[in-house]
């Protein structure tokens, strides 16, 4: 919502476009800074005191408060502070932090609904306890005037409670009836109304049986289920919003030679944007000045950087590596190629929401059954007793109360809450309500390589084979550049030789003078070497060239995740857009025999669809824009938090940490959760099998109804908590 409004107001205000960038900055800066950071690693007391302590000590920070449940910290600070100032501070004490855009976290509405539900739970609990107290007297044999008095008081408490607490059920029952459907809430509402009205009638005629306690207890247990359900939905929704907000993109816009930082939504077509080395392209555009290399890994899966100079076309999402680039904007924000991809994904997504959950299937079976039972009991007893409506209604109310899906309403929400809480603690965020169930059905896992199984930081190969002189020259040259390959070399080499006149030629490499002779490190064609098939950089020294190849660095936990998935009987495959040599080397290393290299985005999606066509349930794990099609086409999908927006939007589950081993745990927990749900349905069915015949025969007392209801609800909740960790 917030997105659309923001966009609309921008378009509706043409003046905004002509205001100079610096004014736009001033408008944003005038508000006091309220910074929200996500802290995926926050856990325990230590996190609170460390994070709050270090933040409060930071100059300019007014208050800082950690919310451990949501793993966030809210900071009120002087207007000049930005999140980028605080993230390194937190990293310094060992907490990974991501900026969140507080404007996009529109939690207010769901917040209000949640509190309303909680309020109804509280009221129902109060009434239930009081009526129980009065009912105990009736059950233990209160008679005549005493019983009537107790019934009257119970009724006086129960009627307003049912009217107030039953509203969510009445509303949704009415909505489903108007659509001509028999949802779960129809029998619930019917039971509430019937039980209350027959009890009022009985009380007025000083009858023996009043079901006030049952009606209130019913609404209490069902409201708890409803509240848990709401909470996990709200968590999933806020997770989705949080991810949309995770990357708050800004661009450096050149305003008559001055550099101003603007949020991406305020960059207009035609603006000149400066992209520093190491920065990600915020927009689509045309390079007008500077030369550099760009890393398109996230967009295409290529691990080899691509040259960029004046006239080159760059797209949002590429990473600028060596030299500063000035880019003229051709498309920004929602029109950029990155966001157009995201829109395509949204279409694919909507196709997947047609999945029917276990709970839907159970209620489709169950609702008609309850009505048939209750009405046939009414009909039978009306005929049997020769027209005693009071008795027949009594029986049919008892049947409705006993069969009412108390346990059923709790069975799924309790399990989902327990499982998603467990996964959240492991750094696995479930974005979609049905993802857990779908994850449990998976039998094939397809991994992307670049950025998913690998970290995107390369490891140099065969350095020992180089002559010592070349190695020391290499060390000196590598220390000059911030290119990822050079940085990897600098980290692995020591004792740099004395190389003078060092300078970087952006887009090509580094050169210098060694004993008066020119030396170069960089691209093959610039150095004069024959290019290798794999990612490599080349050193020219004394007319000789040396090639230094690179292998991808494996993401921590990748091997554990693959082993864990195999142990659970899954087929693991690798699909990458990278070159065949690089993919083969990597696949051999992690031990995946089944791999595809050089796959285009459409081919990745087609592969997943093929597998689906063969009757397989595919879990896709990927991070790049080239994976989004496959992520959306898969039965269920996972992406790491470092992935591009579009990929995170397309996937159902996001890994918050860097470690991949949580995937195996997630699948295990999801399978367990599914099993618990089925068990819970079984338990509530078993209770019904025992209690319903009693109710049909007219032998169900209010005491029996109360016992059956609370016992089944408690067993179901306890069963939900039996989720265990995966031990490999």
């Amino acid at each position, binding site marked *: 919502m917030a997105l659309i409004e923001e966009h609309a107001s921008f378009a509706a205000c043409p003046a905004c476009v002509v205001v100079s960038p610096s004014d736009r900055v001033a408008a944003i800066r005038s508000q006091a800074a309220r910074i929200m950071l996500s802290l995926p690693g926050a856990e325990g007391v230590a996190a609170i005191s460390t994070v709050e302590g270090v933040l409060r000590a930071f100059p300019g920070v007014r208050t800082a408060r950690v919310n451990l449940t949501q793993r966030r910290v*809210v900071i009120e600070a002087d207007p000049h502070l930005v999140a980028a100032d605080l993230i390194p501070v937190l990293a310094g004490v060992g907490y990974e932090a991501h900026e969140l855009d507080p404007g996009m976290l529109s939690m207010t509405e769901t917040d209000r609904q949640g509190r309303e539900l909680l309020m109804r739970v509280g*009221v129902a609990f109060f009434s239930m306890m009081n009526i129980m107290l009065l009912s105990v007297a009736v059950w233990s044999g209160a008679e005549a005037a005493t019983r009537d008095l107790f019934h009257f*008081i119970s009724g006086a408490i129960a009627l307003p409670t049912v009217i107030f607490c039953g509203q969510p059920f009445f509303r949704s029952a009415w909505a489903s009836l108007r659509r001509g459907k028999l949802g779960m809430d129809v029998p619930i509402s019917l039971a509430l109304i019937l039980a209350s009205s027959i009890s009022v009638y009985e009380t007025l005629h000083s009858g023996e049986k009043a079901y006030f306690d049952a009606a209130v207890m019913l609404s209490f247990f069902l409201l708890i289920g409803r509240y848990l359900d709401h909470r996990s939905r709200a968590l999933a929704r806020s997770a989705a919003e949080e991810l949309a907000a995770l990357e708050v993109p800004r661009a450096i816009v050149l305003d008559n030679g001055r550099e101003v930082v603007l949020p991406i939504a305020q960059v207009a077509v035609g603006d000149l944007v400066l992209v520093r080395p190491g920065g990600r392209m915020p927009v689509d555009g045309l390079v007008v000045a500077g030369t550099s290399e760009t890393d398109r890994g996230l967009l295409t899966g290529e691990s080899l950087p691509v040259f960029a100079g004046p006239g080159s076309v760059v797209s949002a999402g590429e990473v600028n590596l060596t030299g500063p680039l000035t880019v003229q904007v051709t498309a920004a924000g929602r029109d950029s190629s990155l966001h157009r991809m995201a829109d395509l994904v949204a279409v694919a997504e909507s196709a997947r929401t047609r999945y029917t959950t276990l709970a839907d299937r159970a209620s489709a079976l169950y609702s008609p059954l309850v009505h048939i039972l209750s009405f046939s009991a009414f009909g039978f007893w009306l005929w049997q007793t020769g027209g005693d409506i009071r008795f027949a209604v009594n029986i049919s109310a008892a049947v409705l109360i006993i069969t009412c899906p108390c346990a059923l309403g709790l069975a799924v929400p309790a399990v989902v809450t327990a499982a998603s809480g467990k996964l959240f603690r492991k750094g696995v965020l479930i974005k979609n309500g049905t993802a857990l169930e779908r994850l449990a059905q998976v039998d094939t896992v397809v991994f992307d390589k670049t950025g998913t199984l690998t970290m995107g930081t390369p490891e140099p190969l065969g350095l020992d084979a180089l002559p010592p002189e070349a190695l020391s020259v290499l060390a000196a040259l590598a220390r000059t550049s911030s290119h990822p390959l050079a940085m990897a070399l600098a980290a692995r080499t020591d004792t740099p030789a004395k190389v003078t006149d060092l300078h970087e030629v952006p887009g090509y490499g580094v050169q210098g003078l060694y004993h008066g002779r020119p030396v170069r490190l960089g691209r093959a064609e610039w150095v004069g070497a024959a290019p290798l098939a794999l990612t490599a950089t080349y050193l020219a020294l004394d007319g000789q060239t040396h090639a230094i190849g690179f292998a991808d660095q494996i993401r921590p936990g990748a091997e554990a995740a693959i082993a864990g998935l195999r142990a659970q009987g899954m087929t693991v495959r690798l699909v990458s857009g990278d070159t065949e040599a690089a993919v083969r080397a990597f696949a051999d290393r992690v031990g995946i025999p089944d791999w595809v290299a050089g796959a285009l985005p459409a081919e990745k999606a087609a592969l997943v669809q093929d597998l689906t066509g063969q009757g397989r349930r595919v879990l896709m794990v990927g991070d790049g824009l080239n994976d989004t099609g496959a992520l959306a086409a898969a039965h269920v999908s996972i992406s790491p938090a470092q992935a591009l927006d579009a990929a995170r939007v397309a996937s159902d589950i996001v890994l918050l940490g860097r470690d991949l081993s949580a995937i195996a745990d997630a699948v295990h927990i999801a399978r367990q959760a599914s099993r618990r749900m089925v068990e819970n349905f079984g338990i509530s069915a078993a209770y019904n099998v025992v209690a319903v015949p009693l109710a049909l025969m007219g032998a169900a007392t209010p005491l029996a109804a109360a016992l059956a209801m609370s016992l089944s609800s408690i067993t179901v909740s306890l069963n939900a908590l039996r989720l265990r960790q995966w031990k490999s």
Partner: protein
Amino acid sequence: MEILTILIPVSLILGALGLLAFIWAMRTRQFEDMQGDASRILLTDYDDKPAVTEEP
């Protein structure tokens, strides 16, 4: 049985007090961060600031 005329109102009033306390706790957002509050009680550093309430 006359004792009932005292006991029943008393029990209702006590229950209602509990309900009011619950509603108050909810209105003042004391259920926002249950995990955090559970941990906060173990903190050793003295905290004299009131909670930052998140206004909508």
